[in-house]
């Protein structure tokens, strides 16, 4: 029969080998993963705990004032921030909000710290670009849930594996846009900087990065949004925050609670999005 052709090769043990590989990684690099987990976890808990300690009214006012100035002295975003944040407080989700914010903040920061240099490397070397591009495609198309499994293997449960999964899922836009932004800098400007005798790093820091800033910021904005979208997924492996509420509402079919927690995430998303976007347009 025809299927015998397909069955000619017995099933290749990809899954098994991936597991073996992950186990090997976990065992071999435990000396690395364990301290990362411990330090990062305590740092994040420390951050979240301190955020929670600040009286909510002060946080809300601070965000509103920042929003006012960042959006060019307009009241829209400030008003939205006040109402939105107050609503979350009112629903009793303030602590969750602070946890979620910490998770998004830390994983976005790490994404940027890793993503921008990788993007620069990519823009400087065709080989690097050829190698990294498919990896980025892979990272972005793989369902985010899949990252949870090695994340748990490496880091157990809690915030840190959440950060790890988010890092893999959310870093690609920053890398791509950094690469794109630098490659888009006009050839004449690069030539000008070289013609005056710039070193490679002078060219990068004085011309290419400033010119690419708007594009890089657009990538960072996407990264932050993706990190936020990982919040619910990360809660499946025990990362505290608004996602936990969504997840437990789902498990218990509590439409109301699920909706409220979801709205909380949306409010946070809108505020963060506007903040990163206006920072961007202001610098143009």
């Amino acid at each position, binding site marked *: 029969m025809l299927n015998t052709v397909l069955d000619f090769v017995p099933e290749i043990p990809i899954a098994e080998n991936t597991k073996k590989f992950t186990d090997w990684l976990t065992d071999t690099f435990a000396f690395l993963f364990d301290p990362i987990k411990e330090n990062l976890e305590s740092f994040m808990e420390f951050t979240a705990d301190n955020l929670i300690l600040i009286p909510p009214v002060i946080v809300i006012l601070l965000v509103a004032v920042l929003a006012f100035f960042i959006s060019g002295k307009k009241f829209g975003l400030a008003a939205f921030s006040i109402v939105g944040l107050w609503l979350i407080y009112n629903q009793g989700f303030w602590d969750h909000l602070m946890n979620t914010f910490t998770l998004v903040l830390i994983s976005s920061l790490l994404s940027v710290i890793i993503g921008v240099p990788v993007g620069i490397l990519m823009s400087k070397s065709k080989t690097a670009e050829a190698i990294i591009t498919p990896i980025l495609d892979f990272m972005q198309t793989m369902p985010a849930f899949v990252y949870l499994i090695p994340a748990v293997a490496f880091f157990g449960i809690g915030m840190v594996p959440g950060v790890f999964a988010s890092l893999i899922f959310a870093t690609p836009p920053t890398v791509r846009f950094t690469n794109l932004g630098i490659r888009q800098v*006009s050839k*004449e*400007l690069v*030539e*000008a*900087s*070289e*013609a*005056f*005798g*710039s*070193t490679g790093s*002078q060219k990068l820091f*004085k*011309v290419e990065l*400033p*010119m690419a*800033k708007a594009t890089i910021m657009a990538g960072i904005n996407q990264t932050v949004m993706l990190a936020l979208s990982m919040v619910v997924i990360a809660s499946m492996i025990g990362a505290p925050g608004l996602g936990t509420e969504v997840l437990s509402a789902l498990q218990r079919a509590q439409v109301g609670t699920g909706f409220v927690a979801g709205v909380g995430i949306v409010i946070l998303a809108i505020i963060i999005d506007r903040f990163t976007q206006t920072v961007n347009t202001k610098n143009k």
Partner: protein
Amino acid sequence: MPVIEVKNLSKVFGKNPKQALKRLDEGMSKDAILKETGNTVGVNRASFSVEEGEIFVIMGLSGSGKSTLVRLINRLIEPTEGHVLIDGEDLAAMDKKSLRQVRREKLSMVFQKFALFPQRTILENAEYGLEIQNVAKDVRKKKAQEALEMVGLGGYLHQKPGQLSGGMQQRVGLARALANDPEVLLMDEAFSALDPLIRKEMQDELIDLQAGMKKTILFITHDLDEALRIGDRIALMKDGSIVQIGTPEEILVNPANDYVEKFVEDVDRSKVLSAQNIMKRPETINIEKHGPRVALERMREEGLSSIFVVDSKRNLKGYVTADDASEARKKDIRDIHEILKNDIPRVEKDTAMNEIFDVIYDSPIPVAVIENDKLVGIIVRGAVIAALAGEGEVKLDA
């Protein structure tokens, strides 16, 4: 020693440049090489040298390799073959650090589309070259400001390039290049993006600047009028090769081949040629020795209707006409002074031809060409017309 010396310099873009060079040696054309090998000849065995204080223009149609050539000179493009010497030092042999040093200290570039850094202010743009040399902030600010004042932009220090007109932006480009106090300015079609009036203005200013600062300037253009206007010498490029190098007059008057001739055909010669190119050796008589009789004889021999009168030092004293001279002979007048006329149209040796028109238009006698009060030549109406028509009778450096 020349400031820039280019020896046998070639650049081929593509996968197999050496092979393409070999084809060039076998006499294949740029087009044929592109078709057969897929390699583009950018510059083909260019050789020339530029002396200190000279404005050397490289001219050619779009695609003839001008930009490639100028970028080979500061090694923004690596040559396929050949050498570039700056003050006698071979650029090709330099490591990155010494190359940077040469770029910082000796060569500054001005770009066609200005290439200003848009996020920097005008002052910060002009500071760039010094900033990357880690010159102290107040020093570089002062130098950049001086350079900006030199190009007339002292009042725009804190604007962004986007706020300025094209002409002003290119002044910033020029100031940025001058702030480094380089020996050489490399200008790649620096004025091509400007509209004609601004362009003329910039050309004049460049000539003035150069006269004051004695920079060596390598100026690229596709515009023959511009080349003729500002160039001390011009190299004409075609398909990557230099087809002729010479002063504007040499190029106009003695085109090396049909290509150059076609190129210069339409040029407004009246602006480029001057009195010395079209003047003839004057027939004269000496006021201290000769009388009306000699004058008349000389005129008869040469078939002239008038003749200029000079003293022994060739100072122009006047002219006599054939009519007056024969009248004088009849009346037996011996003294030439009695029939001497003095209403002679005069021009200097370097008066441009378009100014000679007005003088010669209603003059019955030839125009006298004067240098240091001495008569050095005459211009007859026919010579002006012949020169304008591009015919051969003009000569160089009489």
